[in-house]
């Protein structure tokens, strides 16, 4: 018989609901406004390590609400957050599902330091309080960052992250080529990640505001895509124009909600905390 049932129990659904409610109260208490941007959009991310899914009409399911949330900020929105689905092609495994729930927020006037404190506060609110350590990227990978190929760095950082358990650790001082959309200060990216018990749960930036630098990075992304025979992504001119108009000084972060639920419940993978993971959705 067709297995139509969800893969998680009603108790897990209740835990998800409680954690969503707790997240909304957390932001309400801090006067961060909830927004909803489009899940399906004309443009996709250029990052060569992230593949978008495309619909039959050529549009892109969003891999993160970042581009549109920044357009809101440039248009004058105050600090904002969003909880919603994001999609990534080819990401399937114990700790990956092609569709997952992301909590993403932007804090006007904050820098990476202040935002890390807020991320810790949210994680404390959802998982219970704990201590937070701090490690520099270079110290984590244990090889000279400048002279090591990026593939090897990716492998080393992943292995080092998996060993950070049990612990809550912020990784900071990312190499400049891995800045993504973070500004680069003093030769390193103003980017951080939070690892909880060996799992990456948050990725944050003191956001890049320079429209010319943003365009250079997106063009470079496409050059890397060409080298790797990946589809080039047309540049999102609306996103670029919003930066030319002016993004306020802000810091932003994305948190994987399903991973937090799994950590809260001690689950051994995402399938146990999602009603319909990809293989039965």
């Amino acid at each position, binding site marked *: 018989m067709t297995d139509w049932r969800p893969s998680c129990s009603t108790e897990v659904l209740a835990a998800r609901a409680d954690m969503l409610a707790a997240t909304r109260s957390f932001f309400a208490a801090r006067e961060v406004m909830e927004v909803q941007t489009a899940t399906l959009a004309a443009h996709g991310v250029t*990052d060569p*390590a*992230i593949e978008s899914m495309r619909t039959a009409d050529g549009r892109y399911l969003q891999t993160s609400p970042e581009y549109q949330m920044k357009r809101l900020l440039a248009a004058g929105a105050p600090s904002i957050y969003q909880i919603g689905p994001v999609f990534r092609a*080819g*990401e*399937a*495994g*114990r*700790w*990956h599902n092609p569709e997952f729930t992301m909590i993403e927020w932007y804090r006007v006037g904050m820098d990476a330091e202040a935002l890390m404190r807020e991320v810790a506060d949210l994680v404390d609110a959802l998982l219970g309080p704990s201590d937070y350590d701090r490690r520099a990227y270079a110290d984590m990978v244990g090889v000279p960052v400048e002279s090591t190929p*990026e*593939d090897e*760095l*990716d*492998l080393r*950082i*992943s292995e080092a*992250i*998996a060993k950070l358990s049990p612990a809550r650790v912020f990784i900071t001082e990312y190499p400049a080529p*891995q800045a*993504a959309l973070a500004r680069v200060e003093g030769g390193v990216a103003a980017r951080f*990640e939070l690892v909880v018990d060996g799992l*990456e749960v948050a*990725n944050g930036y003191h956001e890049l505001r320079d429209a010319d630098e943003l365009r250079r990075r997106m063009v470079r992304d496409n050059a890397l895509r060409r080298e790797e025979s990946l589809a080039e992504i047309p540049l999102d001119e609306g996103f670029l124009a919003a930066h030319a108009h002016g993004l306020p000084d802000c810091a932003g972060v994305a948190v994987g909600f399903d991973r937090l639920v799994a950590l809260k419940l001690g689950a051994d993978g995402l399938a146990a905390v999602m009603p319909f993971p990809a293989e039965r959705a």
Partner: protein
Amino acid sequence: MATYATNEFRAGLKVLLEGDPCTILENEFVKPGKGKAFNRVKFRNLKTGRVWERTFKSGESIEAADVLELSMEYLYTDGEFWHFMKTDGSYEQVAAGAAAVGETQPWLKEQEVYGITLWAGDPISVTPPNFVELEVTETDPGLKGDTAQGATKPATLSTGATIRVPLFVNQGDVLRIDTRTGEYVGRVQG
């Protein structure tokens, strides 16, 4: 030649690694937030039984191994090879060498059914059932009524294997043996 890409990896897949047939035990998709994806894979080498761990970049491929797992009945040994027969009615036979039979040799009993792994048609490993029943061919006389906890003596079985048995076991008794531990489980009522 058939190959499997990393996105097709799953437990149970048979592949060639460094020239040896292996089965995938675990496949973990790993991806840093902003970085390239890869697969951390655990394999069991089907020839040696050893577990290997390898990391592949996503998109890499490895060659498929022509591996079949069959149930076959043990017939006899000619001293050099151990002969097995298919149980599908074809009466087709294969001859397994000492390397394939390995540690299963003491548990080989005629007419019993074993798991045979064939690589390109040749047997590379023989897996016994979890329990086999074998006759005691030699042991010290049993002491009737002696059920002292933990006291044991050696006994030789029809296959030549020697195991520890309780004192009350006699020559001619048929014993149930756990092949995973090589331990006595109980006497089979004749």
